[in-house]
């Protein structure tokens, strides 16, 4: 694995997208394409990002670790820290940009695109994540509980772990 290419892929993925999950489609395309990461790596990283401290966007650190060990995690951390600095430029020009309708509409379109891409990637992972109808049921229950916002994410994952051990651990 080329660490500089690795660094560039992580930097590029968050430089051109917004939010902690915006980089998911780009990283998915690049790392799967290179054969550096598997679908399971992505699911693992997304799960760790949900429970570990710090922004959920740190799922990229987990992915970096799975692909390149501690060096990968470190390179991913540096790559993730650079694009957010651009917010300073926007903050400086905030009052001028705020009134430009075209800027607002363009950024809304970007966000809509991010939602579509994220949904497509999530659904694309379904094939390797769900093995039978019970897996599908777990996914739907988790979706519902997460949307209700009444159950902490860590409890949802813990309950899913128990369910998995009970359903699939017997055989």
């Amino acid at each position, binding site marked *: 694995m080329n660490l500089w290419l690795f660094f560039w892929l992580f930097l590029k993925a968050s430089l051109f997208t917004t939010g902690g999950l915006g980089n998911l489609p780009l990283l998915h395309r690049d790392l799967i394409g290179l054969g550096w990461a598997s679908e399971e790596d992505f699911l693992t990283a997304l799960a760790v990002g949900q429970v570990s401290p710090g922004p959920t966007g740190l799922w990229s650190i987990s992915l970096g670790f799975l692909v390149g060990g501690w060096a990968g995690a470190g390179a991913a951390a540096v790559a993730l820290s650079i694009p957010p600095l651009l917010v300073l430029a926007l903050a400086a020009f905030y009052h001028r940009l705020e009134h430009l309708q075209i800027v607002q509409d363009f*950024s809304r*379109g970007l966000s809509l695109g991010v939602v579509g891409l994220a949904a497509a990637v*999530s659904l694309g992972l379904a094939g390797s994540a769900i093995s039978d109808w019970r897996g599908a049921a777990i996914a739907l229950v988790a979706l519902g509980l997460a949307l209700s916002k009444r159950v902490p994410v860590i409890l949802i994952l813990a309950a899913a772990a128990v369910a998995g051990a009970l359903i699939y651990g017997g055989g």
Partner: protein
Amino acid sequence: MKSFEKTAIKLSSSSPSSLWLIFRTLLGVGLQSFGGGSSTFYLIHEACRRYDWMDEEEFVRSWALAQVTPGINLIKLTILIGNKLRGAAGIAAAVGGLLLPSVFITALMTAGYSAIRSLPIMKAILKGVLPAALGLSLAMGVQMAMPLLSRARGEGWMRLGISLGVILTAGLLLAWNATSPLVVLLLGGGVTAALFNFIPAHGGRDAS
């Protein structure tokens, strides 16, 4: 009160904007915020109120700015807080404090998980956790979509239709491997800006 605090900031090293306090506070956030973004956001907000780093209005405006620029939103929020308090040094103290422990713990948790994932019981547990993680990432997609769609709905059915169309088209283009995600995003931004230009928001009827 405000002017007193500003004077105090200059006089005392233990003032609300000392670099050590910024670093120490964000270090605490990075250590305690198990459960991902929502608990991190909560703790940062709490710190801003406790030390009077930002009032609610500025906090919300900073959060809005963080939404539309590249990268992880909570890092951008942390950058804006650090920058406001102490400029470049403040940014380094705040972001360093937030990321040092959380990056380390995230990597450790991944390592621990990788070491035990070949055990049979772990495979069974995984078959439960992976679908749940999928459900959670779908939920995040829905949560990201809701504010965008409800705003478009308030501006009329045409704009809601355009928004849904952009989401659906972006997803399909990616699913069919038609083009790179970056091109999809730029197309989404361009098409939305162009169409919204022809179909003005008519908030009046829907808002009333």
